[in-house]
């Protein structure tokens, strides 16, 4: 078993996660650019976040997404719900993290093996500070979209495994031949 401290996030995961975030925003007509990682400002705007847990062959962890509430509201694909604005934004934030993780999995393709995903959970606050637990490998990413700071944290630990599988069960090798259906595609059987 790899010790948790040795656990590294492979370069391809970093690149694909960053690409997944940029592509998600692009699909909503918003330019999003990676920036050097930074924490939210002390006097920052009201933020919303969502986290989704996952478990693979020899790894488990979570993906968190945090962005200003206003930015999240501007991406809503449906008219604002005047009666339940908070609930609507929470639900949408959960769907955003779900779609970003889905894009990451699809980009990793067959190399990533099987991941089970949990139901996303939401949180809100001001100047939310995301920190990794001791022993976890972390990938903190930051982006700027429409002048807003967006943060994405991938947090993972290796799980004891008898087969000695690589924690991510992936390598930086080229993708396998199996075709992954891309976002927006339709397959009829």
């Amino acid at each position, binding site marked *: 078993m790899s010790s948790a401290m040795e656990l590294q996030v492979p370069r391809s995961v970093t690149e694909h996660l960053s690409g997944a975030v940029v592509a998600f925003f692009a699909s909503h007509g918003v330019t999003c650019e990676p920036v050097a990682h930074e924490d939210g400002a002390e006097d920052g705007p009201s933020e919303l976040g969502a986290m989704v847990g996952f478990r693979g062959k020899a790894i488990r962890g979570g993906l968190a997404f945090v962005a200003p509430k206003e930015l999240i509201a501007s991406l809503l694909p*449906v008219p604002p719900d005047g009666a339940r604005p908070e609930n609507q934004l929470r639900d*949408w934030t959960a*769907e955003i993290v*779900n779609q970003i993780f*889905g894009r990451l999995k699809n980009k990793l393709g067959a190399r990533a093996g099987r991941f089970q995903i949990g139901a996303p959970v939401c949180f809100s606050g001001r100047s939310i500070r995301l920190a990794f637990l001791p022993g976890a490998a972390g990938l903190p990413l930051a982006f700027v979209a429409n002048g807003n700071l967006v943060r994405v944290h991938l947090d993972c630990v290796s799980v004891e495994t008898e087969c000695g599988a690589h924690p991510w069960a992936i390598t930086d090798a080229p993708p396998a031949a199996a075709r992954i259906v*891309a976002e927006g595609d339709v397959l009829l059987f």
Partner: protein
Amino acid sequence: MAKQIIIIDDSQTVRQEVRLVLVKAGYEIIEAEDGLEGAEAIRENQGASLAICDVNMPGLGGLEMLESLHADGGGAVPVIMLTTEGRPDLIARARANGAKGWMVKPFKPQMLLATVAKIAGAP
């Protein structure tokens, strides 16, 4: 009478997104928020023209729902999956359990409408 489409997704935003597109086109919508509710909605609405179903949902997921319906003989309502997943093994599992199609989120409204019209017919 308008054709009925069942939309099964744990995200209210996604259900509403689908609803807006399909209601505008003239379809009638039935919503369910997980696989258990979805299976019930399909069993109770055998006259529905189509069910559009998410994969990752708390409780009973979309593929598990499809498997349980398939084990019971499938029923008359065609099902297509609408999900962030694009993995071939999951798609094969859906197909083996009677699904008629697979769409990857986020969907384009015209694409959704064309797909629904192809399977369910005009509203």
